[in-house]
């Protein structure tokens, strides 16, 4: 999917015009991002503990 296509999808999503397939793709994207966020936050927790120990 090109950036232009994503922008078009985004505009249609804002207007509530997306199809069920497109909504699924958006939910999948969100799921993947949150999965990554979970990993990121775990790393932050570890980094925070390390920073506190080094104080």
């Amino acid at each position, binding site marked *: 999917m090109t950036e232009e296509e994503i922008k078009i999808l985004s505009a249609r999503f804002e207007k509530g015009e997306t199809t*069920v397939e497109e909504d699924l793709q*958006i939910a999948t994207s*969100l799921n993947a991002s949150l999965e*990554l*966020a979970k990993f990121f936050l775990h790393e932050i927790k570890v980094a925070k503990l390390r920073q506190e120990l080094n104080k």
Partner: protein
Amino acid sequence: MNEKIGIGRGITGDELEKQLQEELGETNSENIEDNEQTVEVTNESVEIKEEDKIEQELSSQIDNVEKKFDSVEKSIAEIGGEEVVKQVLGNMSEEEQSALQIKIEEQKKKIKEQLRVLKMGDNNSDIDGLWETTKILNSNPLSAVIGIPLFVTTGPLKGIQTLIRKIKLSVDKRKLKKMENSNK
């Protein structure tokens, strides 16, 4: 063979046969039309079934998103809030930030692979676009937080919440439309 048959009707055997053939012909064409209608209805049913299947998949995906969102929200609270997340990042040395960035890229690859295995997204080539989709769809995305070096403005979680709400709204709209159509 051409003798009149049928009491008082004066119809010859040939005429009767012709009439019968005409009637049979009509019946056949009606049958063909019926069959075509059946095929149309069947195709429509297949489409509806397929759409229902995607709708179910979407519902389960939304459930997953909500669970993950809760978990992310909990983690941020445990750390001490979004500001603390930014502080921790800010206190990291450049080397530590680079190391974290590498780890995140590796994790991205793993998630992409999982998506590939689960055959999620339009097709495999679109998986790279998944991150971008969230980034563009949400003006204040969590995906921007995880694109290191980073610093978001405030409230990425609110942005994610809005996205979830919008997807749910879209699902409800379609349900309502379907109900309206079935009532017609």
